[in-house]
């Protein structure tokens, strides 16, 4: 069985551990980056859209189950985020997409969609406006995730990417 099928699942647990224990220490005004999403985007870009969709679903399911948040909310948002990230899976454009700025922009896009979808479903009775939903709840955590995503790619061994 290829490592591409089980490695991200194994990696999910230590990443979630860091997400739950270390990441709150670097929160800015309660806004935290989403390491799970960065991992999801990375693998979706590597292995394609179908893979990204399935992986997003599994990540979301495990995340909801373990963290105690509304079961199904992250499943939905991460499935869609994995699907979107899969659009950037292209053998011929790997050199471009896996550059720090491109990768962080893709993380920004996927994270925004993830946050907005998640907020939309977990805040069904919310009488918040669209600006609040997209900017405060979607963009700000996404920008933070994008910055961390850029660092991840910068320090990731280039040989492993090619």
């Amino acid at each position: 069985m290829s490592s591409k099928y089980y490695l991200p699942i194994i990696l999910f647990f230590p990443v979630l551990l860091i997400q739950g224990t270390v990441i709150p220490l670097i929160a800015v005004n309660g806004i935290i980056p989403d390491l799970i999403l960065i991992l999801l985007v990375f693998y979706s870009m590597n292995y394609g859209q179908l893979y990204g969709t399935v992986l997003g679903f599994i990540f979301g399911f495990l995340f909801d189950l373990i963290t105690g948040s509304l079961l199904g909310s992250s499943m939905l948002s991460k499935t869609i985020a994995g699907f979107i990230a899969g659009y950037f899976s292209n053998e011929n454009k790997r050199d471009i997409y896996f550059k720090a700025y491109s990768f962080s922009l893709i993380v920004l896009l996927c994270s925004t969609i993830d946050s907005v979808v998640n907020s939309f479903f977990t805040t069904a009775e919310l009488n918040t406006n669209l600006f609040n939903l997209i900017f405060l709840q979607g963009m700000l955590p996404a920008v933070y995730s994008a910055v961390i995503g850029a660092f991840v790619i910068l320090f990731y061994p280039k040989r492993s990417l090619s």
Partner: protein
Amino acid sequence: MIRFFIHFWEEYKEYIVLVIFVIISLVTISLNKQPSVKKARSIAFSGFAAISSVVADVINITGVKSENAKLRKMNAELMLEVSKLRHYGIENAELKSLLGLKDTTKYPLIPATVVSKSLSIAQGTFTLNVGSLDNVKPGMPVINEQGLVGIVNSTSEDFSVVRTLKNLDLKLTVKDERSRIDGVMKWNGSDLVIINVPKTYDVEPGDRIITSDLSSIVAIPLPVGIVIGLSKVETGIFNEVKIKPFVDFVRTEHVFVVGIVENKELEGIQLNFYNRNKPEKKNK
């Protein structure tokens, strides 16, 4: 026909899988209150929390020195406060005995450490290293030295998940400490707000908000936050009161679970009313 389906699958498999997973997710959202889902969740989080607690302990050790200094200062301040309160306490006990009221100020506190945090915008939750073996039950309030942190939502044997005040599913009856006005407080995704407060009610910025004794979840007065403003609703008769919580949820590491669930006597009375509506069942 089969060839058509194979061709259709090959052509649109990404979209088909996406649609299937979206449907499964939506169905799962609707199944959240099922007991089997709650049980599966408690097994999952307790397994993971065991590992998280080890990491959280290591992280907490690094912050012990600075925390100690802070605690020493707080200790000194509390010592002064306690001596003042002791005086009031004696006075209060005397007055209560004159009125024939019982003392209800002793609550069991279960110390706990936060082993994991989920600081999502809508669903803030903490995982604590105490569970049903420590007599923690769903519904118990969780506090720290600053005020109310949240309510225990589910427990396993050794761990429990707490819904923080910054969780859309948590709604609390609270009270303005100064004007004694009650209202329902909830998290709206960006602020803690008391909803549907009539404009004529006396609520002002700077007022302290505590839990109300009308609350069926937290029937003891616990500090919640401070009023920072009233929404400027031009039409209608209701205001929305914005609250700044006392608790810093990002930095909270050590908490206490207050060992009360709800008022048993009150519950008994309510059950009497409930049972009265079903005499046929009672007779059986």
